[in-house]
């Protein structure tokens, strides 16, 4: 049977998908064990035991500031910032993406600006951001939003812009004005793409969150990572990064499921 047609069963998919990840874990363990046998206090590739101790410590120590347990306090703070930043970015992507994609005058006006913002690395202009927004939560949330929104806006705009022209004309013959075309034709068809765009933005969003928390912060997963990076405490960094990856993968899976559930027409077999 051709590979293009070789559909695996659910169980086989799990096995196949797990294998490379397991392999990486095993390679890591072997390398870590080798380094530890050479230098028992090696910090760069900690053994599971070491990570376990370090994490147990963070899971049981209360944070001096909030009184909550450090690990959960970090998680909560980061998720809040991420949620707000991604939420704002999504909102912008939807509104501007639809307007830019559907309305030529808006496209002409805003598209160069969005492209410009998209290609300006926001971390290069952090000082300006600080002056404008201070050093508090706002600047972190805004950094995430500015970091991921332009790509999302451009993605949605391109998707809306490539809707078949027949659909727009059909809507016009049905008496739709520009607003109705946006609300009833472009918006619903942009939604699955928006969810896909959020999924693709998750990775960059975490990058910007961590960068923001590295710059100035007193709590958060990125704060902790950058604090202990000073001491090359990979026994904290690796579990934290794994935890971030797990959270992000859960969000990814949830978004994919939401898309299939909410927009069945976009996932059915085409005929």
């Amino acid at each position: 049977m051709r590979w293009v047609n070789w559909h695996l069963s659910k169980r086989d998919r799990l096995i196949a998908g797990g294998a490379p990840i397991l392999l990486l874990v095993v390679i890591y363990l072997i390398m870590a064990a080798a380094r530890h046998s050479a230098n028992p206090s090696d910090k760069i590739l900690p053994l599971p035991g070491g990570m376990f101790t370090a994490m147990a410590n963070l899971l049981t120590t209360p944070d001096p500031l909030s009184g909550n347990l450090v690990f959960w306090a970090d998680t909560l703070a980061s998720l809040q910032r991420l949620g707000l930043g991604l939420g704002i970015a999504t909102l912008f992507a939807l509104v501007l993406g639809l307007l830019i994609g559907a309305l030529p005058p808006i496209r002409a006006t805003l598209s160069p600006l969005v492209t410009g913002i998209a290609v300006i690395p926001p971390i290069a202009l952090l000082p300006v951001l600080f002056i404008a927004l201070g050093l508090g939560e706002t600047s972190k949330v805004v950094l995430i939003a500015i970091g991921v929104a332009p790509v999302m806006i451009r993605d949605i705009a391109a998707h809306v812009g490539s809707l078949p022209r027949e659909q727009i004309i059909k809507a016009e013959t049905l008496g739709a004005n520009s607003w109705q075309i946006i609300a009833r034709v472009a918006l619903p068809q942009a939604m699955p793409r928006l969810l896909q765009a959020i999924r693709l933005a998750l990775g960059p969003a975490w990058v910007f969150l961590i960068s923001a928390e590295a710059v100035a912060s007193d709590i958060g997963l990125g704060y902790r990572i950058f604090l202990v990076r000073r001491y090359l405490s990979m026994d904290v960094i690796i579990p934290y990064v794994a935890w971030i990856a797990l959270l992000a993968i859960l969000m990814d899976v949830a978004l994919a499921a939401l898309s299939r559930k909410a927009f069945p027409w976009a996932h059915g077999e085409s005929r």
Partner: protein
Amino acid sequence: MSALLSLKNVWVEYGDKVVLEKVNLEVAEGAFLSIIGPSGAGKSSLLRLILGQETPTRGTILLDGQPLKPECGPDRGVVFQRYSVFPHMTVLGNVTFGLECPAAPFAARLFGTARRKAEAEATAMLEAVGLGDSLHLYPAQMSGGMQQRLAIAQALIKRPRILLLDEPFGALDPGIRADMHGLITRLWRDYSLTVVMVTHDIKEAFTLGTRVLALDKRRHDPHAPHRYGATAVYDLPLRGPPVPAPEPETAPEPVAATN
């Protein structure tokens, strides 16, 4: 009666390829114009011109004596050759949309009784095209012929002044096709629509139309096949009202006048 639609010396060219040349056409209000012609002659292009989807490279198009704006409104309805419906709306949603647009310019949706009324009207139309059983399917779950009927229902529910049909019955079996003939003839008469229909079925063209237009190339240069475009080679006005298609036994009740 002055012409509703008139094309004057209209040309359509793509690069150095001439598709339509020197097309002159006057369509009177209430006419049922059938257009026939070989594949690739430019029939669909002509409909796109009337829709405002494309602009002619040369010549002018007048609607009600005014130059045609390069955009389309609810005065024109269309069934495209590749029956395109909205993939994200159910069958019912696709048809109700046309009723919601004028009624809810800001909300873009109807609610409550207004919605139920619109849905009832849409359902009646869908029953007329034989999709009464499939109200809640998405287009991707339907057969080709069902999608085509949906596109027809979607266009007809608006009762547009000018109805543009591009091979609307091509994917339908003879039984349903006869039903559709009956339906369209009835609506055409009851609402005095103007219909422009492209078809490959000569019998259909003559049975339904009050006038048959044949598009084809007048000249053909085998060494430069693109140099000559198609134009109206025959234009046959048929006398008298068109013979309505025989009412088939299984024909649904006419939909008319629910609004």
